[in-house]
């Protein structure tokens, strides 16, 4: 399996506080993605990166920002968390060329009270 980790694995926070989730991969993959998983919705893309400092919005990007200053790290920030952002967040990576499956991290369960 691709070496991809997420931190923290669990977090409880309060409405209005900033939150940053970290995704770290050791495979030198070019592409990285953030998804959220909610019951009845499957996984939905929040933001993605196609290289260092190259990012773009996904389907549900409102209220989220990302940064990628190094190949191995992709950060997801909730500037001011809301209860609607309570979810399980998954990070994924994909090697250059794209003809492969995405490799997923273990997920972060975020609860916003």
């Amino acid at each position, binding site marked *: 399996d691709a070496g991809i980790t997420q931190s923290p694995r669990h977090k409880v926070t309060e409405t209005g506080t900033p939150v940053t989730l970290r995704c770290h991969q050791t495979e030198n993959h070019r592409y990285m993605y953030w998804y959220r998983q909610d019951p*009845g919705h*499957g996984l939905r893309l929040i933001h993605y990166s196609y290289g260092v400092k190259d990012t773009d919005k996904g389907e549900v990007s409102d209220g989220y920002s990302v940064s990628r200053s190094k190949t191995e790290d992709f950060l997801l920030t909730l500037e001011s968390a809301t209860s609607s952002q309570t979810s399980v967040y998954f990070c994924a990576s994909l090697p250059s060329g*794209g003809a*492969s499956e995405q490799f997923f991290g*273990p997920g972060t369960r975020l609860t916003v009270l």
Partner: protein
Amino acid sequence: AQSVTQLDSQVPVFEEAPVELRCNYSSSVSVYLFWYVQYPNQGLQLLLKYLSGSTLVESINGFEAEFNKSQTSFHLRKPSVHISDTAEYFCAVSEGQSGGSNYKLTFGKGTLLTVNP
């Protein structure tokens, strides 16, 4: 824009029975297709994938899926299920070598397969 429809949100079956989980997609370009499985309280694992070549793909634990371009489908089948196959199954599609898509995945909403004794 691409989309994925999983026609059944829940599929209950008895152990050793056959099962089919249906997946249809919509895309205007060539696609890559995937089935991921999520066991309770775990992350996503790749079950099988279609990138090119043979339209019938198989997993190591007995699942298979067939890419049908004319029907835009990628149904998942297993001839005899086990209790341990109880999980949620997600179909996903990404645009292939057409470029510009950055291989973003679009997921279906998932099918919960429950295998009963």
